[in-house]
Structure formats: C-alpha cells, structure tokens
C-alpha cells in the first residue's frame, strides 16, 4: 500500500509537468557533482561493511545514506 501510494505521487508529479521546471543550476554548472570525491558512495563495498558493523551492535536500523544519496549530474 505504501509503495503504491509513493508510485502514485511520483507519477502525478511527473504527469503534471514537473519535468518542465527551469533548472536553476544549469548543466554546465554541475561539474562539481561529477567529481568522484562528491559521489554519494565512492566505496560501496566498504560502506556496506561498515553499515553491517553498526547494525550488528546498535538497536537502530534503516534509512542508510546509501539509499538517500544523489547526483543528478547528467
């Protein structure tokens, strides 16, 4: 149910013309986001291992950074 609602919201956003918004950061201004040091997760295997260390020793779980990172540099 949750997933269905989120897909519906995303579909409505796309259908109502959100894609036509003028980007305020132009493509030629996004070179910083293409720099490897700006990558949301440069080392996925090493990050995955560290997250496992946390999950094995802490009560909290979920919403790891690897799910919420972003680039949008293309």
């Amino acid at each position, binding site marked *: 149910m*949750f*997933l269905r609602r*989120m*897909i519906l919201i*995303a579909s409505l*956003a*796309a259908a109502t013309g*959100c*894609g036509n*918004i*003028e*980007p*305020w*950061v132009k*493509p030629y*201004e*996004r070179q*910083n*986001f293409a*720099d490897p*040091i*700006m*990558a*949301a*997760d440069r*080392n*996925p*295997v*090493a*990050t*995955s*291992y*560290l*997250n*496992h*260390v*946390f*999950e*094995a*020793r*802490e*009560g*909290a*779980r*979920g*919403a*790891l*950074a*690897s*799910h*919420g*990172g*972003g*680039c*949008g*540099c*293309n």
Partner: protein
Amino acid sequence: MIRLAIPAALAAITAAAALTAGSPAQAAVLPDDRADVLYHRYEGGGVTVDGPSLLVRKKVAENYSVSANYYVDMISSASIDVLTTASPYDEERTQGSLALDALNGKTQYSLSFANSDEDDYTANTASFDVSQELFGDLTTLSLGFSRGWDEVRRNGDPEFEEPVDRRSYRVGLSQIVTPTVMLGFAFETITDEGFLNNPYRSVRYLDTENPAGFAFQPEVYPTTRTSNAVAFNAQYFLPYRAVAHGEYRGYTDTWGIDAHTVRVGYTHPLGERWVVEGGYRWYDQSSADFYADLFPRRDAQNFLARDKELSTFTSHMLSVGATYEFGASRGSFLKRSTVNVFYDRMRFDYDDFRDILSGGAPGAEPLYGFDANVYRVFVSAWF
C-alpha cells in the same frame, strides 16, 4: 551461533543496498564497471570478525548492468554475553548477492537478491528499487521495497526451527540546491514478524537462593517489530576541491527504542594521486521497553531482554582513510584502480548494562563499556 538474529538478516538488505547503491545516486546513468576486493576486520569486546568481500559489476548491452557480491564473516567470540552464560565459539557466515540494474530514459530499475547463511540462521532477501530524475534533473526520487524470509535454528537442538518474515519500505530524495550543495533525505519503515530474539541468550533476575544473588532464564521478545528511520544529509563542495558532509538520522520503533545518529566528514585530495578523509560519528539510543539488566524476579513480565544492543548506550567513532589512485597504463584494460586503507576507532559506553564478570553486589556492578578497532583494506579497479 547467531549473535543477534536480525542483524544477520539486515546484513542481507545492506548487501543488496551496496549492489544498488549507484542507482539513486545516478538515476540516468548506469554505474561504472568495477571490481572490488576488500579485507575487513573488527576487534572489540572480546569479539574478532574478519573476512573478505568481493564485488564485480559489469554492463550488459547498453541499458543493463549486473553485479555480484560475495562476503564472509569469520567470527571468534568471547564477548561478555558469551562468557556470562555460555562458552566462547567460532563460526562463519557467508553471504552472496546478485543484482540487475536496468535503465529506461531517466528511470532506473534495480532488482536484487541476497542470501546469508550460517550454522543456525539463514536469511533470504529480495529487493526492488526504482529511481527517477525530476525537475530538470536536479532532483532524484527513489523508492524501494525488500522482502525477507529467514529461518532461525539452534545448534544442538534439531527440533528448533522458527521463521521470520521481514519487509522494508523506503523512499529517498536528493536535491541539487546550488552548484556546490546537495541535500538528501531518506525514510525507511521496516517490519519484522516471527522469532526475533536470540535462542541462546538469557536475562538475569534476583534470586536470593543462588549464592551469586541472581540467576538466569531465557529471554523472550515480542514476535513483531516495526521501526521508522528518517535521515537528512548534506554535501558541500569546497572552493579548493574538497568535500564536507554531514548527516543526521532519527529512529524510533515499537519496542520503545529511540535513537539519534550524527555524522560529519571531510574528504580532501592531495595532488593527483591521493585522497585522504576523516570523520566522526555519534550514536545514542534509549533502551527497549522490556529491557532490564536485572529483573526483580523470575518471569517478572511477559517480555524479557538483556541484550546490550537493546540497552541505553552511547557510541563514538573516529574514522580516517587514505586512497591512492593508479592511472591507466598503456595496453591495460583497466581505466583506473585504487588502493584504499580505512581505520575506525569505536567506543561504546552502556548506561544500564553491567559488567557482572567484575563482581559486586547484584545490580551494583560497574557499568560495561569497550573499545573496538575496525579495519577496511581494499583494492578497486574500473574497467
């Protein structure tokens, strides 16, 4: 022997996230072909865990990418929990994951499956993630769902076999705000149903007939758990080519645990070849409603726990790391490769978990705490 049931299962989700980590980050481009070979080692609290992790990712045709991860934990445990009620043990956990990413315009789909197996616990997890670029490609929205089917067993008891059903629902959003600032948001709900406690662990209660003043009985957890976690993160590209980043995560669940995590870091290139980085992480949690270091009597309540992971505690972690990059050499099929060394120093201080091996009157023993060292050494190659 499982240390705590759910982390073994969460590891499968984490592994799946590693395979699909590139998807929300770069919705309109598939991740680069790469291979990683990592050695990991954790030492702390009487526990040593080490082993390899191997990752290979390769594009297939123009719009597909497949990846595979093989991971091993070799565990040698003489933790305070084990020394209190059992004997030190060695065990091995192996985990394999496969993922397929597909690109369709500005939408990326990721399908993955992970299997984790050890003597007395098997976890299977299937995940589906989709990410879409919006608003002139300044925004990336990602949605994900995982389903897990686990089996809990108990060594020495062939009759014992209990299932766990897990589901995870997540949404993420990343936003380019300025040419140097990116913000991120993530929310995840996880539900578990089944046998959620450790079949070996015990709680202790006051017992005046016992010479020690206390005795033990098996722990009892609820059979359901639902958690919500929300995270915000920010990355800032500094004018001299370096990155500062920060993150906050808030967490709450139906067992009564509330937790906060704050993390800051800094990444700095040195010349053409080196990248160094450092960071600090702070974590704080309250205890589960049914946790106690010492219960007043046997069967004091319907649910009982004395896992220190469910107690009130604070941890700190300092991290340093260095990466050296080799350029492409003529005639080599490798585009570039790196050697990486990372070290993390952790400190755990428990507010209501006592070190009963130190002696003292029941309930008046010193509080427990320990330091841990985490090493990650790996080679990455892009081809």
